[in-house]
């Protein structure tokens, strides 16, 4: 048992206990603590009186304000929808040409389209819509399935190789793996395909390889990509004469493509986004491409 002492520094007495050299002062609780406690308790009690708080068996005290978070949020959602109503109604009713002609509607399309695109499309196509390996650049003029607002809208609706019954379907066959072309022929086709978009590659290639490649291309590839290699938007076959590549235009990537084939996937958005949202996205992309 310790002895009660007076602490010379604070002038307070100790409690008389000591543990391993530690003592305690018997200082009174500062008044400000009680004040502080009173203020916070008053705040709490006021809130309890005004808001739903205490459980009473199967119900609870509703509070004088009669506030309920579920009702608040329901009303807010309704009010927000009403606020958007004037322009959503117009977008739903008008066709693409009319909306494009309406400057004020297009302002809303651009603002809303940015967020819609960012939240739904950017994960694959990038926030700037420039795509990445395996995901097409949407800011170019090189469209797989057509670049009109109607065509873009349809692609968004049904997707590509998706689960939608009306899905757009396209497949690049695995010429190498499935033994449709021997490796030597594939190499020639690659040389030819590269020459379509790259004049330097054309000059560097041996003329006989180029000629053989062209022949092989006409026999095996032209049915989808066209005699001139400019692709076919009816079939989703990419244009091979521009310098935009979905997977890449270097020899190794082209070999991968020709050897094992490609079957890109874009989900259907019909069940995930409203018609108005899909229309906005189609217009947003069309508009984005229209302005450099």
């Amino acid at each position, binding site marked *: 048992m310790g002895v009660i002492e007076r602490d010379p*520094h604070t002038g307070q007495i100790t409690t008389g206990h000591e543990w*391993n050299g530690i003592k305690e002062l018997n200082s009174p*609780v500062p008044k400000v603590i009680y004040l502080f*406690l009173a203020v916070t308790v008053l705040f*709490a009690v006021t809130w309890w009186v005004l808001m739903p708080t205490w459980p009473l068996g199967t119900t609870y005290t509703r509070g004088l304000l009669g506030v309920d978070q579920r009702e608040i949020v329901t009303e807010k959602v309704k009010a927000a929808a009403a606020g*958007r109503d004037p322009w959503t109604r117009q977008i739903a009713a008008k066709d693409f040409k009319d909306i494009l002609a309406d400057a004020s509607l297009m302002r*809303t399309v651009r*603002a*809303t389209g940015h967020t*819609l695109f960012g939240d739904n499309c950017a994960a694959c196509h990038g926030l700037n819509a420039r795509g990445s390996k395996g995901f097409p650049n949407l800011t170019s003029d090189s469209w797989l399935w057509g670049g009109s607002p109607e065509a873009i809208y349809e692609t968004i609706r049904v997707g590509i190789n998706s689960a939608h019954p009306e899905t757009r379907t396209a497949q690049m066959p695995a010429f190498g793996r499935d033994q449709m072309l021997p490796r030597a022929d594939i190499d020639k086709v690659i040389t030819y395909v590269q020459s379509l978009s790259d004049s330097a590659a054309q000059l560097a290639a041996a003329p006989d390889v180029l000629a053989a490649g062209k022949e092989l291309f006409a026999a095996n590839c032209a049915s989808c990509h066209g005699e001139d290699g400019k692709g076919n938007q009816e079939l989703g076959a990419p244009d091979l004469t521009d310098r935009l590549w979905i997977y890449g235009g270097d020899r190794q990537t082209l070999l991968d493509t020709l050897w094992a084939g490609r079957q890109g996937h874009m989900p259907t958005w019909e069940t995930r986004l409203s018609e108005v949202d899909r229309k906005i996205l189609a217009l947003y992309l069309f508009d984005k491409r229209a302005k450099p």
Partner: protein
Amino acid sequence: MIAQLTRNERQTALLILLAVAIGGLAMAVGGRDNLLGIHGAIAMALAIVMMFVVIGGYYAPEPTEDRTASYYDDPTKVGIIIAMVWAVIGMAVGDWVAWLLVFPDMTFDAGWASFGRLRPIHTSGVIFGFGGNALIATSFYVMQRTSRARMPDQVTPWFVLLGYNLFCIIAATGYLMGVTQSREYAEPEWYADIWLVIVWVTYFVLYLRTLARRKEPHIYVANWYYLAFILVVAMLHIVNNLAVPISLTQAKSYSLFSGVQDAMTQWWYGHNAVAFFLTAGFLGMMYYYMPKRAGRPIYSYRLSIISFWGITFFYMWAGSHHLHYTALPHWVQTLGMTFSVMLLVPSWASAGNALMTLNGAWHKVRDDATLRFMMVAAVFYGLTTFEGSFMAIRPVNALSHYTDWTVGHVHAGALGWVAMITFGAIYASVPWLWKRESMWSPRLVEVHFWLALAGTIIYVFAMWNSGIIQGLMWRTYGEGGTLAYSFVDSLIAMRPYYIARAVGGLFFLLGAAIGLYNIWMTIRSAPEAAYDMTPDEPVVAGMPAMQPGE
């Protein structure tokens, strides 16, 4: 260390290890087609290694009877080293995942390197590995000294410390392999949870047994807090982990609760883990090491009492503030919010009591980085509890919730309060335990202090900025009444703050690594023969424990 155990205790230790090894073997065989089997094998392997350790010292001469005249500190020493090792591991993984948020592709396409698996290694590593081991180690130290009694036996503390670390290892390896029950801060699966219950109840009983032997008529405040920590964590752990395994040979289990009840149980656990693990336990630490190091009496015994009961009472209600604006009924949210606001009073009373204790010792705070660690911890404790009460207010939470502000708040508490008080306590204990005049390098303690403080401030400021920007971007509407920013826009806006945060974290990690080095060098340095150890011993060895009121 084995030499300190009696022959009987060595046998008991072997039996316990044999039981663990057999249990591990059963799990390894029964769960051979499942990740549970790997955990069984790990448990068995560790138990066998420990058996070799015990057998290696089995024929060492028995300790002499006069060991009971001193406190039993071997588990504390080992616990402190383990805690510091976990600190470095946990903080390193934390900084790793911080960089992962800056460079999200840094996963090598491997499952184990994904954010979802590494992040719980960070959280469990620092909370349970570092914090938990530090609490266990210091509680052994403090309970013996403030009770003036040695622990009743020498096997139980080892069982608690090593058993707890077996839990930590099972937890961390499980996360890497994808074993998780997806409950934040309670990720380990059912078998690890059951093991922790056994260890934890043993810990609680050990504490009570030591207190029962005490030769002080009164129980010191630090013990109230340590006991509250042990008791309530047991309760939280058991209730939140009630689950049904899909089979006894498989790791997966399903929670007994579902839907919003499940969410409420989880956050009742989650917030009280903050309250009783990260607050009460470390307040116990603070109540011993701060007055001891400052050489000052506790400012006010009365303030200690109202703070203790205020904290234990108010915290229990506060968990639902994690579920504002969710499917949780509005009235439950109101209760969580209002009790969180009232909680500020006992929290600040504790912080105030700590800081007022330093009156008369501020010159020591200026000169002694160890004491300064504890002072800054008390300041951060006050700041964080204010911020917490503020963020619990529903309209404030509408902005802060799900943002980095929450992350910043947690780290203000975890780095500023929990880690700083622990570093202070460890730097104080190491020379006492290993009988040295001071740490190997007081200068490095000083370096650690400034790295830790700078790291914390960088971290917290980065997350405040990032969190508030995020919160505002998420709720900004354009003219047309649709959201102005996509989620990706907000990620781009956060990137600079993520870099700053990772740098702040790196500072903090460096500090901890320097601390571990300094501790190691202190242990390796030559002990001083003249070290005065008399005040540290129980007064009368072998004297029957005095009963309260005697």
